[in-house]
């Protein structure tokens, strides 16, 4: 207990010292100096370990630097220093090999216990599968019939500087992952394409999402709250644009959220049954395009030459409608073109295909109904 208090005090002293150095010109400087303590037992353990190793490093560093600085100040030719002749001592070498070794052994003990706790995913209360996609996250609640994608909602105008940046710039998504508090939640983490890494700093860890592998990790939150994170492994051009928002709710609120998700699913099925007009489909399709397609094919449908093909005037988007549906539904293996049949519902797919055939100068004039998508699946 005393050790913890001491560490916290020293931690704030460190912060204060840096603040003085930085002059505290902006609040932003002081908010971003140290590791976050986080919101879980594990994240606190990791933080304490971090501070312990940090202070060991500071003490050793300051001692060595003090000797160096003393020597630089006093053992100078200009002060008439005469060089000593000593140049080896086995005793001294043994001493300064042994001491660091013992310090390291001392560090290894708490590091080992923390690591074992962090990796212990046994006896979990529920499981959520997390799948990385270029450039979004998918969450599958394995114990409920809930599954959704989570995509960045920061408008491109803010990114390009045409609009003022909001408070949660690049840290906001359409569908946050929602979890109950006081439950041990096991995450099963994998990827659909390249390697990503799922990281919410307040949970105290990150875990790589690797295609073909399922990694596991766990957390247990005590209080309701909202936590933000980011993809931490370079995954292509959208790497900086696939944040994570995690909301922890009380058990009742979580149950209400689960019910709401299931209700939304029924409404979705109803929408797929009705017949849509072309204008409705184009309007909805534009939204779907902005969230799912724009990163590669670009807002003007021109793609990026040599990397991502253009949709404007493309043989597929202006050709046979069945071929267009096929590539959107099933993707193109070996390329970044994903199989969106698994990601979007019938309405979204019909809308986006209709939008693509009637935008960027592609004036095909035809349209696809959700029922046709359902038939083509």
């Amino acid at each position: 207990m005393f050790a913890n208090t001491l560490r916290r005090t020293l931690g704030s002293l460190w912060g204060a010292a840096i603040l003085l150095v930085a002059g505290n010109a902006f609040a932003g400087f002081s908010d971003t100096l140290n590791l976050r303590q986080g919101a879980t037992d594990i994240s606190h353990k990791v933080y304490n370990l971090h501070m312990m190793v940090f202070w060991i490093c500071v003490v050793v560093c300051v001692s060595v630097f003090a000797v160096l600085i003393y020597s630089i100040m006093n053992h100078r030719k200009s002060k008439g220093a005469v060089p000593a002749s000593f140049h080896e001592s086995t005793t001294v070498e043994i001493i300064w090999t042994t001491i660091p070794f013992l310090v390291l052994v001392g560090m290894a003990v708490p590091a080992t216990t923390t690591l074992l706790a962090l990796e212990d995913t046994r006896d979990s209360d529920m499981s959520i599968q997390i799948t990385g996609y270029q450039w979004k996250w998918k969450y599958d609640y394995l114990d409920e019939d809930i599954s959704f994608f989570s995509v960045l909602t920061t408008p491109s105008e803010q990114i390009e500087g045409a609009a003022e940046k909001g408070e949660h710039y690049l840290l906001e998504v359409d569908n946050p992952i929602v979890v109950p508090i006081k439950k041990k939640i096991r995450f099963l983490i994998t990827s659909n394409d390249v390697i990503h890494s799922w990281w919410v700093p307040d949970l105290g860890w990150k875990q790589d999402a690797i295609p073909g592998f399922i990694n596991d990790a766990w957390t247990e939150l005590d209080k309701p709250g909202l936590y933000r994170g980011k993809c931490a492994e370079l995954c292509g051009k959208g790497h900086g644009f696939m944040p994570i928002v995690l909301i922890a709710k009380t058990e009742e609120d979580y149950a209400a959220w689960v019910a709401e998700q299931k209700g939304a699913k029924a409404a979705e099925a109803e929408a797929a049954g009705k017949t849509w007009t072309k204008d409705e489909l184009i309007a909805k399709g534009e939204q779907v395009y902005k969230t799912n397609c724009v990163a590669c094919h670009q807002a003007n449908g021109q793609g990026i030459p040599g990397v991502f093909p253009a949709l404007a005037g493309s043989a597929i988007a202006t050709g046979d409608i069945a071929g267009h549906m096929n590539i959107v539904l099933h993707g193109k293996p070996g390329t970044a073109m994903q199989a969106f049949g698994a990601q979007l519902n019938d309405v979204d797919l019909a809308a986006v295909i209709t939008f693509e055939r009637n935008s960027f100068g592609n004036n095909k004039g035809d349209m696809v109904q959700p029922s046709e998508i359902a038939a083509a699946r």
Partner: protein
Amino acid sequence: MSTATTHDEHHHGAPSGLMRWIKTTNHKDIGTLYLWFAFIMLLIGGAMAMVIRAELFQPGLQIVEPQFFNTMTTMHGLIMVFGAIMPAMVGLANWQIPMMIGAPDMALPRMNNWSFWILPFAGTMLISTLFMEGGGPAFGWTFYAPLSTTFAPKSTDFFIFAVHMLGFSSIMGSINIIATVLNMRAPGMTLMKMPLFVWTWFITAFLLIAVMPVLAGAVTMMLTDRNFGTSFFSAAGGGDPVLFQHVFWFFGHPEVYIMILPAFGVISEIIPTFARKKLFGYSSMVYATASIAFLSFIVYAHHMFTTGMPVAGELYFMYATVMIAVPTAVKVFNWTATMWRGSMTFETPMLWAIAFVFLFTIGGFTGLMMGVAPADMQYHDTYFIVAHFHYVLVTGALFAIIAAAYYWLPKWTGHMVDEKLGKIHFWWSVISVNVLFFPQHFLGLAGMPRRIPDYSLQFADWNMVSSIGGFAFGLAQVFFLYVVIRTIRGGEKATGQVWEGAHGLEWTVPSPAPYHTFETAPEVK
């Protein structure tokens, strides 16, 4: 470029014209070529770093597209590692090893020519990918599969070929150094009498020969995955994306020691000279270098703590990794003990060497912090690691190279460096480099991932500070170019001894060193 052309009383001198440089088998000429190549690459890689820092100056996308930003981080890393630091170290080895062990030249002079002349072609090919359709490599200098295989631009095949060529060059250079050290030492120069720079390079050469073929294996598997239907790294075909990381880091971890061990050697030459006192613990320095080299092979998976390794694997790699702190600490203690009760002066090379000891130590400590696996779950892939490896590679390896240049330039050119200019360069660099990299520790701890072209607003202030430091540090190295050219062109005549406290065979020959030295082997007592 006329570093070694004058002062050739006895014997045939250097031929003149372009063909001299193309056909040369002289270790001094080849050393010069390596060093100039490295300097040009430093400026090109530095220009890319300026693009990165300019984009990160403010939140939002202002200057480059995300794809091109990723290309810049990738090419910056590749060019600095394979184009600047490694060739500069080989250049120093070429110039100094024969002179330090009393040999007339390298053991295999024709191969020496070839190992250099591969480099400009490999470098040009690598840089040419920027102008290809689809852009250059954009998957980070660690080129993790499958981002670098299935999902990479077409130019990746040129990148693979360039890496193969760089590997050939390094392996040949290493064979040459080993052959020279083992066969060409002057009578009486036993292994345990060799200058520490020669020792560190000798050990580094073995590391290179051991790991460059592993890198070649990794890129060859990439090549066949991309073009010939294999699935080494593709889970869909039964392969394993994590295998790539194992193979890469089995090369990659020794690689970082390849860049730092010769730097240790340089510092171990400079500090005794200006402290006017023998290096403390010579033999323990040799053993520490060998221990670090050995440990470098068995710790590599500490780069992979978040890939889902078994706990037993994480524990082993954590314990082994933190053990590296022991021989590294021994080195720092030995340098400190060398300075202790010496009679120090602070000419430009000594200033750079002292800055190395201070700043490399900081980089070493952050390395220790990241060796602690549970904490690395937070540090991994953030700006904390970016700060760490720039402290060890910029204020470590690069500072040692600059220190070496200031230390040996009088021997190479026959002119003393203008101390005033050297000191301006030093203070300018050492202040700006800390403004550049120290705040990146804060950014990483606060949660900023590496390799992102845009960031959320809480990171704005420190990024701006870091960018300002970056621009200043970049400009300082252009100033260094001016200092070097000025020293080549003229300046106070250097004596053979150059530095009052210097010991070693290279200081027994005139300055500039004649085109051929030690045609008759000196006797070492």
